[in-house]
């Protein structure tokens, strides 16, 4: 994309940055002036490009502004004038003010004029707006007031103050809001008077303006004045949000963050302010605030304790920890869960026993999940990991499963020996979880120990988890030959059939020729279970290298079971090659067909063959249309292949599809219709 953009940009720049001929500009203005939706926006886009190009060319910028000013006047369409105002918002100077003033005289165009005037850098724009205000009506008047407010025009306060007492609520509200933005001394007086008048219809906008004024006073250093306004707005007669806003402002105005106000609110009975006060504790600056407010924790109601725990945890210092830790065993579940979460945020290794103990007893899955998450989050990497490992021995089975998960999520490699020890147990759930964790944590150097545990495992139900863990760990060794070596090193010492079978099943994780040879040898093992394990593993081999061995098994099978396994393995391997449909692949399918023994085999092969986009695949599938046992599968395969090859081999596809047409049945000879009964 980048080179393309550069070419476009360069072309536009060359075309548009060149000094425009007066005639060109005049034509552009003429074209743009006619713009209405539905027409090409090319003239408008050219002006936008000129705006970009004129940044470094003052003369062009002057020319552009002049063009925009021309666009403001008749006969330019409304949309053209609107566009010009948008451009003047970015580049307009005092030169544009007279033309914009004209737009302020009409309600229809006041809004678009204010687009440009709202951000006009010159104070002369204020005068333009004030002048227009005198004669403006309706929405235009409100628009001008809004813009004067946004510009914080101090000289507009007098007319705005008069409008603030208008009987029309919208007019008064617009003026009051503007006065709140201006917030100078005269504006503040008007707003104070309005506060006293307390007109219900204006109460919220007056409160809003008052809070703006208070902020302005505080910013200017008059905290006393600001505080007086906010305390007035804190009265219970005010709406909740105004009281909350005023309370928050009061806290901000005080140097210490309002510690005493917060304490008073916590001790008080004002349910609306108490949570606000508690939430603010985290921002208090004094060092002893944590201790002071942690001492309040036991005195609060449970739901307040939840809020307080979170607020104290936000402070994060040592003083808050004992109080929070104590609530991990609260009788209230919400308090417990909040405390558990906070412990996870604040604590390290020392909190492990506390959290492990919290797992005991009747706990909901959600709470147990909280504890697990808290344990994962505990800081102090290796020390905490070791503390969790130390707690494993004394933990019940259910807790162990969670702790294994915690160790895995913490990436606690230090836990691998302990996890392997746990994997030698008899409880399948524990052994499974231990192996799952080991699979995530084990490094290359752990693999011998992992294989040792795998071949000697007691919990048969967890064997597949052990194998998965070993397979996952083997991927940490980059050289496939080394993977095979490490498996073989254990295999030569292994006489246990289950253990040897497990090791054989790891061979695809190595995936090299040596590993394949091991399986080949195992296929001829004197022990039937080893032979079956070898064939099963061959059938899952990741690439076509196993094809010939599988074919050999298929041709001279020891049993129907191993033949079926080998067949499935070859069909899968052939299917994996479908993306590259060539003569070699067709030959593989042909061989598969030749060793197929029954309809199930053929159905399996047809399923894979249907994904081969090659005309010769049709030749393999079409003869099977006459085989009633697999006719349905053959039809599907022919149809799918024909559709896939249609573009390149239309004739072959057409012929194949014709073979799918049901045979035409001669209609029976028409008999004379019976006479209709009346």
């Amino acid at each position: 994309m980048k080179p393309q953009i550069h070419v476009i940009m360069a072309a536009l720049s060359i075309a548009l940055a060149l000094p425009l001929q007066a005639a060109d500009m005049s034509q552009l203005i003429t074209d743009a002036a006619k713009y209405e939706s539905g027409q090409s926006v090319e003239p408008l886009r050219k002006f936008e490009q000129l705006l970009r190009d004129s940044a470094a060319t003052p003369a062009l910028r002057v020319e552009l502004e002049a063009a925009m000013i021309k666009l403001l006047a008749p006969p330019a369409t409304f949309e053209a004038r609107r566009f010009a105002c948008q451009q003047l918002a970015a580049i307009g100077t005092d030169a544009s003010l007279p033309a914009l003033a004209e737009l302020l005289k009409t309600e229809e165009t006041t809004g678009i004029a204010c687009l440009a005037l709202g951000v006009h850098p010159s104070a002369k724009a204020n005068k333009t707006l004030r002048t227009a205000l005198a004669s403006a009506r309706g929405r235009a008047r409100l628009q001008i007031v809004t813009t004067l407010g946004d510009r914080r025009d101090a000289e507009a306060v007098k007319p705005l103050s008069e409008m603030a007492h208008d009987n029309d609520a919208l007019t008064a509200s617009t003026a009051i809001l503007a006065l709140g933005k201006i917030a100078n001394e005269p504006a503040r007086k008007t707003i104070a008077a309005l506060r006293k008048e307390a007109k219900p219809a204006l109460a919220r906008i007056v409160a809003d303006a008052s809070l703006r004024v208070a902020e302005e006073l505080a910013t200017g250093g008059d905290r006393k004045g600001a505080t007086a306004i906010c305390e007035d707005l804190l009265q219970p007669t005010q709406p909740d949000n105004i009281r909350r806003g005023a309370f928050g402002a009061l806290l901000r105005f005080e140097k210490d963050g309002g510690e005493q106000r917060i304490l008073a609110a916590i001790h008080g009975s004002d349910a609306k302010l108490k949570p606000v006060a508690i939430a603010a504790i985290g921002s208090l600056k004094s060092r002893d605030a944590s201790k002071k407010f942690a001492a309040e924790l036991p005195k609060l109601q449970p739901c307040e304790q939840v809020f307080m725990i979170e607020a104290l945890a936000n402070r994060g210092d040592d003083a808050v920890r004992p109080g929070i830790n104590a609530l991990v065993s609260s009788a209230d579940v919400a308090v417990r869960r909040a405390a558990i979460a906070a412990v996870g945020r604040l604590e390290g290794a020392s909190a492990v026993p506390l959290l492990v103990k919290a797992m005991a007893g009747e706990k909901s899955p959600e709470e147990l999940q909280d504890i697990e998450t808290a344990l994962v989050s505990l800081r102090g990497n290796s020390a905490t990991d070791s503390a969790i490992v130390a707690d494993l021995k004394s933990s019940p089975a259910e807790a162990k499963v969670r702790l294994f998960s915690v160790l895995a999520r913490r990436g606690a490699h230090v836990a691998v020996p302990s996890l392997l020890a746990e994997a030698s147990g008899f409880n399948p759930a524990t052994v499974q979880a231990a192996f799952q964790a080991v699979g995530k944590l084990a490094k290359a150097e752990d693999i011998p120990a992992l294989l040792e545990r795998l071949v000697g495992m007691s919990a048969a139900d967890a064997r597949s988890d052990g194998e998965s863990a070993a397979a996952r760990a083997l991927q940490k060794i980059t050289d496939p030959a080394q993977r095979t070596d490490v498996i073989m090193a254990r295999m030569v010492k292994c006489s246990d059939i289950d253990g040897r079978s497990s090791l054989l099943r790891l061979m695809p994780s190595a995936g090299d020729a040596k590993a394949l040879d091991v399986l080949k040898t195992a296929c001829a093992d004197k022990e039937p279970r080893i032979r079956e394990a070898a064939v099963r593993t061959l059938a899952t081999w990741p690439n076509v290298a196993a094809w010939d061995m599988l074919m050999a098994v298929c041709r001279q099978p020891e049993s129907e079971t191993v033949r079926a396994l080998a067949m499935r393995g070859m069909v899968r391997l052939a299917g994996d090659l479908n993306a590259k449909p060539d003569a070699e692949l067709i030959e593989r399918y042909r061989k598969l067909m030749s060793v197929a023994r029954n309809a199930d085999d053929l159905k399996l092969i047809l399923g894979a063959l249907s994904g081969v986009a090659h005309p010769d695949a049709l030749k393999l599938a079409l003869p099977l249309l006459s085989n009633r046992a697999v006719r349905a599968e053959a039809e599907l395969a022919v149809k799918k292949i024909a559709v896939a090859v249609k573009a390149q081999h239309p004739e072959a596809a057409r012929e194949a599809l014709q073979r799918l047409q049901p045979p035409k049945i001669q209609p029976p000879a028409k008999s004379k219709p019976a006479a209709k009964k009346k």
Partner: protein
Amino acid sequence: MTSHTLKLNSKTETKLNRRQFLKRVSTALAVPTILPASALGLDGAVAPSNRIVFANIGIGGRARYVMPNFLAQPDVVFTAVSDCREDRMKSAKEMIDKHYGNQDCRMFANFQELLAQKDIDGVFIATGDRWHTTASIYAARAGKDMYCEKPISMCISEGRKLVEACRRHGTIYQGGTQRRSTASYRFAVEMVRQGKIGRLHTVEIQVWTGPTVGHDKPAPVPAGWDYDTWLGPVQWRPFVPARVNGWNYFWDTGEGPIIGMGCHYTDQMQWLLKRDHTGPVEFEGQCEWPDPVKYMSETPLTSETRCRYADGINCVMYARKTFKDRYIRYIGDEGWIQVDDETNEVTAEPKSILNLRSNAGISWTNAGDHVRDLLNSIRSRRPTICHPEAAHRSQTICQAMNIGLRLGKKLRWDPVKESFDCEEANRMRHREPRTPWLI
């Protein structure tokens, strides 16, 4: 939301190392379902008096998508809807009434009447983008807490006004960039903060190629539409069906994929970097504009925009390829981690990073945890995870990128003064709203 609670975050963040802060955040997010004990009745159900009463303002496709996440919360009850399109309003009422098995949902063509209802505690705002700030500020003024869809504003000054309004009115506000509450994104942030990819130096973002809108003529406003309200704070322009339907690709009413999608990712970046109260210092980019002969849409087709933080961390945002190809990738000097938005899939190098993930979790398409965070904040009055300042700052990045493209200039930005080094760009921070909408 108050400024000093924001300072709280800022202050405490500086006290903590990366890992500690991450743990705080992830742990806080891990308990999304806590309800204060007092909210529960004897049977464990939420007592009616403790339910948070919500209403909806603006019910288009997005609102219908998120609404079930609200309705699924045990302590929320929806009682009213408002939309300037009658058909949509009726359909929303049907949806809510069906959920509750009654006919109680009230309809208000005028959202200000809805906001005047004293029984409503909070609002879910999912109007078109042009309305987000205005509706939010009106809601704050009316004493309602809220969840507002992104983008939170149409220009930088609007965003600042929103932050100030929420602070003035003690409003709890949740920005609808719900990926801060999404497991896959949280995991990626956690891994970067734990140093799993080494020192982070680049954040790569991809949104999609901007669509185009062909020329179309003004037409009569359809029956049942209040077009004046639809426009809201946008200065008047004629009703043009293609422009109204493709509002996302005109500067007045939307800002294309850079804002529409980009703000999700800049939000993640800001959160990861703990820059919720500041932002990058430099912006530049190139783009490809629509052919003006064929199309009237205004936002770029493809673009490559970059920004840089003062400490040298870079961000590049591509607008290219298709909608399904969007992603965010964090690149460090020892690896990378990426979240694909369409699939919620996390990929990483080294791959071992992925072993540390407990489970895939629900994707961003379910905003339930984000809604839960809002509800918890409404009760506790602590800031939400995507509070107004955070939402404004992440949005500012996208807005600055667009301003840079529109001016064809490299821009420097002062995140303290919220000011560019360019007068034109500074003027483009603001758009004068149409009356009678007062913000």
